[in-house]
């Protein structure tokens, strides 16, 4: 399979459990605050990273 034909599922499938957990968490964080244009997710994401690798 070439790089161009990879699907979103392939990308997710190639991640480790930790990476997949962070990816899901990051998107949850961003989606929940999508309506707040002034929101900066940096600290919430950093906390999520530290939650996954304590």
């Amino acid at each position, binding site marked *: 399979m070439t790089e161009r034909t*990879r*699907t*979103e*599922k392939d*990308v*997710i499938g*190639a*991640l*480790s459990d*930790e*990476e997949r957990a*962070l*990816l*899901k968490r*990051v*998107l*949850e*964080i*961003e*989606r929940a605050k*999508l*309506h*707040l*244009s002034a929101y*900066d*997710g*940096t600290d919430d*994401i*950093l906390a999520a*990273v*530290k939650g*996954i*690798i304590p």
Partner: protein
Amino acid sequence: MKLQSITLENFRQFAGRQSFGLDSDNTRPVTLIFGANGSGKTTLLNAFTWALYGGFSDDVEQQDRLVTDAIWRSTPIGQSVDVSVEVKFSHDDRSYRLLRTATLRKESDHQQRAIPVVQLWATTPDGASEEINAPQEMINTILPQGVSRFFFFNGERIENLVKKEAYAEVQKDIKVLLDLEQVERALTHLPKVDRKLSADLRKNGGERAGQIQEEIDELNDRQEDAKKRRSVLESEVASLNAERERVLELLRENADAAPIQQRRDQVEQELVEAQRAYESAVTDRATLIATRGFLAFTDVLASDTKEMAEDLYRRGALPAPLKREFVDDLLEKKVCICGTELTEGSDSWRHVQNWRHQAGLQAVETAWQKLAGNVDELESTRASLRSDLSGIAKRIGDEHDRVDRLIAEKSELDGKLRGSRREDVQSLEGKHMELLDMIRAKEQQVGSAKGEIERLAKDIEAKTRERSKAEVTDELALKARARLDLVQSVKKALTEILEIRATDMRNRLDKELKEVFATITHQSHVPTLTEKFELTLHKLVNGVELPVPKSTGENQILSLSFVAAVSKLAREIRTERRAEEQTSVDAGTYPIVMDAAFGSLDEDYQEAVARALAKMAPQLVVLVSKSQGMGKVITELMPYVSNLGVLETHTTAQGEVADDIEINGTAYPYIRSSDTDRTELKVIL
């Protein structure tokens, strides 16, 4: 988002408090509301958008007259009137009540501009209710204002959606709808997380890892600068293009320059087409040569092979499956291959003896015919290659000539404008040329910034690999490095996901658009959503794509097809399994509310559009007049209707104005004489 009801209070024609239920299911998604001209169909459409965003569409006149005229007139000076629109809807497993209100204190007969207040309450499936703190922001998340143009629209003006100046906005707004926005936002926040974590590694990581991290930080800084530079350059190109368009517009409006500019517009458009046709012909030739080009070298090969085979044939030496020697051997040993004794003169002996005569000869004949046939076919295939090649060569030549001719004509027209005796024309053209030069220079800089960003990305990746391998002994540094690697991997995955989603979204929208458009139109035109998100229409003439000038009707069908495609895709995308793992039942569902939906379309088109929309939209609210809706439209829509209503017009107009509307054999009041002008929203079904 699924609409449940709308309640209007003293809103424009709708005096007092009036409600209409909009609940519908998947089998009957349609709400059909009839209303005479001036009854308030456009007002009702605008009531939704006013409640959601606080504004009216441009075609609404006297926008400050928010309160029903009759109510305003009867209100004493010094007293206040409330005006409001309440919309109830569900979205992502939550129920919402949206209320926009304004209180106007009467100081004169003229209504002053109202300052409405918006409130939004949400109820979760377990019954918990809360008022949303940032209601407008939340509404913009559920349905961004720009995106609402796909779902709340006036059918007669929908062609605006496919106008060139709308593309950039459409592309931007659609990102939220199709789940790209949160990925983009994550990608802007992750580098900041990266930066915070890298500080830990620099501090505790020892000499080597610390040094690598510093190098990575520097590369990141340079990449960030390059990205900013590219972004600035791209917006400069966009504003230069907009300025160029303004200059061209002035040339089009100038009496002396207009005919020349109009011709130049045509020539430029034809030139783009000719260049595309030329490139397509060159590609076709390359494909032909790559797939069948080898045949050109088979001339001598075929004749030599044929000559050699003829010689072999004459000598009976072509390979054959049954050799005469083999039969002779059987006869000599007097035993057949099946074990039967071959006594001379017996039936079996005669049988095998017959094979001796046939062996070789018949097989040679067969082999020869096959070979000769193949060689002859090779020659005819070569002949067809020659004719195809000369056909393409002619096409290339013709298109090249067309490009040359158009370039010459364009130069001539440029010269005419440049050398115009009118100074204003001369200076506009000078400005135009100057802008073109600037655009080209900026585009080159954009290209070089893009190249630099790509190079830096590769360098960062290489350094990150190096960092992973560098020796680190400190525990805090080890942890920081593991966290950095984690963030890096997720950033990489999200970048890929963004690209996949964006490409997938455009391809699927394009496919849907083609399918929907084909079900509506009887023309053989094919719409395309280009990579720049432009909606184009073309037809195939002798294998060449030619653009079709779009009429208003075609633009309307194109826009309606696009709306139907967006609606379908938004629903599909949100229900698929993705990184977010969403499970909401009505995820990606949006209603379509249309005023004068079938605008100026022919009856055939009205029927096809009605059918397509009823089948594709999860919820459809159609506002039509008796003349627009009573024919094929109502026949198509009726099986899908959940709610039926009439905007009953009460008018102070003199004379015999009363009129009824007959629906399913029953007559309902449509227009009535009255002492005040107002509209009543009547529920029929």
